[in-house]
Structure formats: structure tokens, C-alpha cells
């Protein structure tokens, strides 16, 4: 920490610094359009509030919003927030002392729709006439920051319940007034946030999904934030829909895990749009509680990178049952995936978000089955793992040559050969498999070698330079193709093996009778 006051007195800086234009956006010259009332900001809570405002007004762009739209939305919010269940929910979002929404149980007894409306409309007046301030909003960087004192003047509560500063009571996860060191230099005024962002922050619960526990308690609030911003409208449509249609908050289809819900949401939307809809889109989910007790204040950020969105969209659209098989494995307690283990019930989801390969889930070793089609595997390999399309084709070619060879073997030998590949845990075992298939080829008189030495080197580094990751990836790809092509025979062979084993036992037992 450095204290500038000790280097130079403050007033010297003031003299030396060239005066800059304030960074407020001026409307372009010659434009007749009035400045829009609201803007996208890049802050998840504020942008979600804007989505609520847009969807309640049935509009798409902030520029289309008119004063009447805001008045109507605010009236709706005032009515909604008094409905059953919302009071408890709001206390988890704003701590229980939000004086604008009158969340505190003691205030709530006397709260009426008119009182809430009065405060929210007062805030809107401040949006229209932001007045002057030395500070700009640290969220939008566009409007002057609002002081707690100014906010007081528009709020319909008793004097002692009015806010003194902009804190976590009225903007989720900001510090509290009595713990001032959450703010830069112990700022007594709380955070610098403008009326525009503050009003939207009062509306965003309408555009949130609520994850509940099995017993129906609020587990956390889920806010989805996408870029390009317009995508937020589709993602949050159901949340706003529940509020508008039935005055209920959206309980995320009763799902108890936020990541499971997000993946389901992407899959669900993908049924109605082309894959191209997701090009260049990224989603970040913010999952949080901002209750009164310290332990209740937490937040997880869940980043869903674009390739994973595309993959989920593709998988759920082109082979939904295969995708369900791939993702069916539940996350065990000892999964070691700390970052996401509290957020999803599924192993594949956690691994995808962790940037780990889910290739092993594409095959079912026990039943020697490919869980999906090659096309989905290929999509995953190229879009998510980043495997070269050519490398993938090459591996597929090699796999087909292996199939061509081993399918000529008798059932029991075929099964044994595949088992060698399945059980290869060390590189030399993997190499041994190729040598044996090459020998099979010669014995069976299949023309041409399986592959050249160069090809072999290539297959080992088919996926990246990390040999250990690479050959295991290739192994899974080969197994996928073998299962895909030879599943029926392999199952027949393994059932025979089981029978064979029983027969052998029987023979032994029966031997005595002979």
C-alpha cells in the first residue's frame, strides 16, 4: 500500500494535473434522437435488471425503452415484491435491510404497493435528472454517482431506516456501512453507483433463477450474463415469464444444481435455434447469496466458454440420448474437482467446465458400446479438445484398418485383442497392441501394413505435444470406433467367454460323473 500524501501534498497534484473532459457519453452531434434512458453496462446484476425491464416492456433494445415502460415495470415490481415468498427471497439478495424495497420484516408489516412504487419512481426521477457529482458510477462509467443522502430524499420510509450510503443493503454483495474497509480507502459514502445502475439493481430479481434445496429453501440466486448482450433476453425469458404470468419466482425447474440447470437451459434453447445462434456467445453465471449472516455471503462465478456452449447445443440437438448417456455419471464425493463439485451433480459437466477431457465418457467399456455417434465425437474433439480435423480423420482411418484386421479373428481372439487395448495403461502396452495387430495382419494375409513408423509417431502425438495425454486420447478414439463397428460381435464373444467360463466349471464338476 502506498500513501501518496507522503510523496507530494494533495493540492500539488491538483495543480499539476491537466483537466480532462468528463468521460460521460455525449449524444452524437446532429442527432435528433434523445439519449436512451438505459444502457448495457457489463455488470451482471445491472444488465439482468435491464433484461427484466426490456422483457416486461416487450422490447429488445435499451434504445426502445420509453418513460412509460419504466413506470409500468416499476409498478409491476412494486406489486410483485409484496407477493408471498418474495420477501424472504429479497432478504437473501439484498441483506434484509434494503430500504428501497423495504425488505426488513419490521418495515414489511407496514409496506404497501404505493410505498414501494413511490421509492422506485423516485429513483427513476434521479435517473432522468442525475444532477451533479464529483464521481462517476463505477459500474457504467457514464452517470454521476448517487450519494446516500440524495437517495434518502426519495425513499418512503421512516427517517431512521433510510440509507446513509450505497452498500450491500441495496446493491448485492457490496460491503456494509459498518465494515467500511470493503470500500477503497474506507470510503464512508459506500460505493460510487449511479441512479441508473441502482434502479436496475432493484429490478434484477425478476430476471433471476432461484436454485432451491430439495426441501424448497432458497439455495442460491442464479444470474446469467451473456455477451453479445441481446442473448440475455432469451436466457432470462423464463425467469421474467414466471414473474409476469404468475407472480412467482422461477425455481429453475426444481433443479438443485446451478450448472445442471444452465446446461439444460442451453440444450433447451438449442431446440429452437440453429447452431449458428451460439457463434461467438459466451455465458458467465453468477451464483450467490447475500444474506445477513456473514456465512451467507458468497458468490461463485461459472464461466461457460463458447466451445462448450456449442458442444452442448450440438450434442443435445443431434444425439440427445447419446448425450444423456455421456453425462449420466453422477459426481462422486471424492471427485477431486473442487471448483465445480458444489455446483453440479454430473461428472462430465464438472470436467467440461474444468477444461478436462470427457472422452472416456463417450465409451462404455463394460458393455463395449459407443455411447454416441462418431459425428458427435468428432465435433467434441475438434471444437472442445481442439484436435486437428486431419489428425482425427487419420486416427479414424487407422481405427478402421484395425477393425478390418481383427474382425477376421475368431470371436475369442477378437475379444482378447480388444481387451489388450482396453487395459493398456502404459505406453509400452499401447505399443504392444499395435505390434500384435500388425502380426495378425500378416498371419491373416491382409495386404499392406497397418501403418508406417512415421504414422505411428504421428498417432502418438495426434493430440498435442503432451505424450501422456495424447496417446490416451488416441486410445479412447480407437476404442470408440472399434465398439461402434464391432459391438455386436464383441458382446457375443464376451457372453461366450462368460458361458465358456461357466462351461469350464461345469466340465470340471461334471467330470466326476463321467
Amino acid at each position, binding site marked *: 500500500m502506498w500513501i501518496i500524501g507522503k510523496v507530494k501534498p494533495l493540492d500539488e497534484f491538483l495543480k499539476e494535473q491537466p483537466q480532462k473532459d468528463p468521460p460521460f457519453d455525449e449524444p452524437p452531434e446532429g442527432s435528433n434522437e434523445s439519449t436512451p434512458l438505459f444502457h448495457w453496462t457489463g455488470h451482471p446484476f445491472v444488465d439482468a435488471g435491464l433484461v427484466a425491464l426490456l422483457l416486461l416492456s416487450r422490447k429488445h433494445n435499451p434504445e426502445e425503452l420509453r418513460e412509460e415502460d419504466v413506470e409500468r415495470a416499476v409498478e409491476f415490481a412494486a406489486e410483485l415484491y409484496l407477493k408471498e415468498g418474495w420477501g424472504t427471497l429479497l432478504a437473501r439478495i439484498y441483506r434484509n435491510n434494503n430500504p428501497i424495497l423495504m425488505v426488513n420484516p419490521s418495515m414489511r408489516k407496514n409496506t404497501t404497493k404505493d410505498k414501494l412504487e413511490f421509492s422506485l419512481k423516485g429513483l427513476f426521477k434521479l435517473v432522468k435528472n442525475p444532477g451533479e457529482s464529483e464521481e462517476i458510477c463505477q459500474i457504467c*462509467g457514464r452517470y454521476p454517482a448517487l450519494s446516500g443522502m440524495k437517495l434518502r430524499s426519495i425513499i418512503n420510509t421512516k427517517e431512521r431506516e433510510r440509507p446513509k450510503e450505497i452498500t450491500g443493503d441495496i446493491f448485492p454483495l457490496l460491503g456494509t456501512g459498518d465494515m467500511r474497509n470493503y470500500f477503497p480507502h474506507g470510503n464512508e459514502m459506500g460505493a460510487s453507483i449511479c441512479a441508473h445502475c441502482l434502479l436496475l439493481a432493484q429490478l434484477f430479481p425478476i430476471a433471476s433463477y432461484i436454485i432451491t434445496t430439495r426441501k424448497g429453501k432458497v439455495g442460491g440466486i442464479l444470474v446469467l450474463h451473456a*455477451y453479445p448482450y441481446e442473448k440475455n433476453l432469451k436466457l432470462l425469458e423464463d425467469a421474467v415469464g414466471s414473474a409476469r404470468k404468475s407472480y412467482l419466482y422461477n425455481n429453475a425447474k426444481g433443479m438443485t444444481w446451478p450448472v445442471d440447470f444452465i446446461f439444460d437451459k442451453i440444450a433447451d434453447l438449442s431446440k429452437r435455434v440453429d447452431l449458428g445462434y451460439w457463434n461467438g456467445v*459466451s455465458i458467465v453465471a453468477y451464483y450467490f447469496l447475500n444474506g445477513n449472516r456473514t456465512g451467507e455471503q458468497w458468490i461463485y462465478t461459472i464461466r461457460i466458454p463458447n466451445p462448450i456452449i456449442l458442444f452442448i447445443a450440438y450434442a443435445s440437438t443431434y444425439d440427445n440420448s447419446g448425450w444423456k448417456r455421456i453425462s449420466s455419471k453422477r459426481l462422486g464425493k471424492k471427485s477431486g474437482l473442487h471448483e465445480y463439485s458444489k455446483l453440479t451433480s454430473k461428472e462430465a459437466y464438472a470436467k467440461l467446465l474444468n477444461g478436462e477431457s470427457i472422452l472416456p465418457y463417450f465409451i462404455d467399456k463394460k458393455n463395449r458400446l459407443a455411447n454416441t455417434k462418431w459425428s458427435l465425437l468428432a465435433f467434441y474433439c475438434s471444437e472442445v479438445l481442439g484436435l486437428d480435423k486431419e489428425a482425427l480423420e487419420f486416427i479414424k482411418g487407422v481405427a478402421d484398418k484395425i477393425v478390418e484386421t481383427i474382425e477376421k479373428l475368431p470371436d475369442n481372439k477378437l475379444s482378447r485383442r480388444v481387451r489388450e487395448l482396453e487395459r493398456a495403461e502404459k505406453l509400452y502396452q499401447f505399443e504392444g497392441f499395435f505390434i500384435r495387430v500388425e502380426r495378425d495382419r500378416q498371419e491373416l494375409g491382409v495386404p499392406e501394413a497397418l501403418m508406417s513408423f512415421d504414422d505411428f509417431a504421428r498417432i502418438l502425438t495426434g493430440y498435442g505435444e503432451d505424450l501422456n495425454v495424447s496417446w490416451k486420447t488416441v486410445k479412447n478414439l480407437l476404442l470408440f470406433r472399434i465398439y461402434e463397428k464391432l459391438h455386436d460381435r464383441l458382446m457375443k464373444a464376451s457372453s461366450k467367454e462368460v458361458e465358456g467360463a461357466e462351461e469350464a466349471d461345469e466340465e470340471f464338476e461334471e467330470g466326476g460323473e463321467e
Partner: protein
Amino acid sequence: MIRVKLRAWTASFRFPTFQSGYQPTLPVPPPSTIQGILSAAKGEPVYLTDIPYVGYVFKSEGKGIDLEKIYALGKVETDIMKREFHYKAELYLYLPDEWEEVFRKPRYQLLLGRSSDLAVVEEIKKVELEEKETALGGTVVPLELGLPGMVHALVVEYDYFTVPRRAKLVKPFVVLPFPRTEAEKRRQRVRTLQDTELGIGVYLHRWSG
């Protein structure tokens, strides 16, 4: 241009508006942290809007969560807070040549976040960046670049004339973590300048406009 390499055991860059009981870290430092480092090195407030360009690349080996005891200001009251931090952090700064002198002898401690995230200057060298198709990462980039990623509003620079300091310029950015795999590199590709030695793209911010 010079490249200054800073190294620290820990680093943490809080989301500017998540200031409550739990503080997650941003994947990379926001511009305002860079402003802080430059100011500390120089010993006086530096404004990113006053320097011709600045680029940076941040990477770390992983993340952890720390428990921190904090004291209320002016009161006998403490609290325990969870703070997420990066472990084994490296920050490369790309700056005009005149900064070499400054980082040879930094005036104050250099920090990658809080006062416990002490950093050292490990290397200063002249570098030439090459324009080519390459992966960006470990930095923030403007939305106009069209790269997909986490979008978040961040403070570019604070006004240090006042106590408490005030945000002077705020913008939304795409926050791009340092790519870990070839697959990630591929999706963060764009035509830009590359540090060929590190094999990573460097976006030079020119806020001086």
C-alpha cells in the same frame, strides 16, 4: 518497447463490485491494478490515459482460497473473510522504453492485489512484438475485438487526487484467462501483436486516445 516481468507467490484481483464476505478473484488483473503497479513503481500517480500504450499478460499456476482476518475501521471489531487468490503468479508488462529506469528502482512495493501479494521485478528486457495471427490471453481486451469470453465492467483508472480515490474511467471488457491448452489458444486467436518468445499475443491498450 520493454517487457517487465513481475513474479509473486500470490495475487488477487477482486471483482470491483463484489466487496462482501467472500471475494472471488478475477482471472487476470483489471487495468486499474496495472495503474496501481505503475504508480507504485514511479512513486507518483500514473494515469493510463496519459501513457501512449500499455499491454500486459498474466498467468498463474492455480487458485486457492485464503481466510483473512479484517478489522473494521475505527472500531474494535473484526471479521473473517474468504479471499480467492492466484498461486505462483507472473505478470508481464509491455511499456515504452522510458519505464525501464522506473522498474530498475521501484519507489514503493509492487503488489499484485493486496498488501500481502508482494511482487518482485524478475527481468526487464527490450522486446519487439510481431504482428501475426496468434492467441491472446492473460489480459483484458475491448469488446470490439469480437473474442468470446467473460464480459465485465472494470475500472480502467482511478483518480488519485482525492481521498478516497474515485473511478475516472470505467469500461466493459472481455476478460480472457491465459490459455492452458492448444484448444483454448485456438479459440482466443486474432490478428494482433505477438511476443514470440512467450508465444502469446499482446494487446496494447491505447487509452490516451
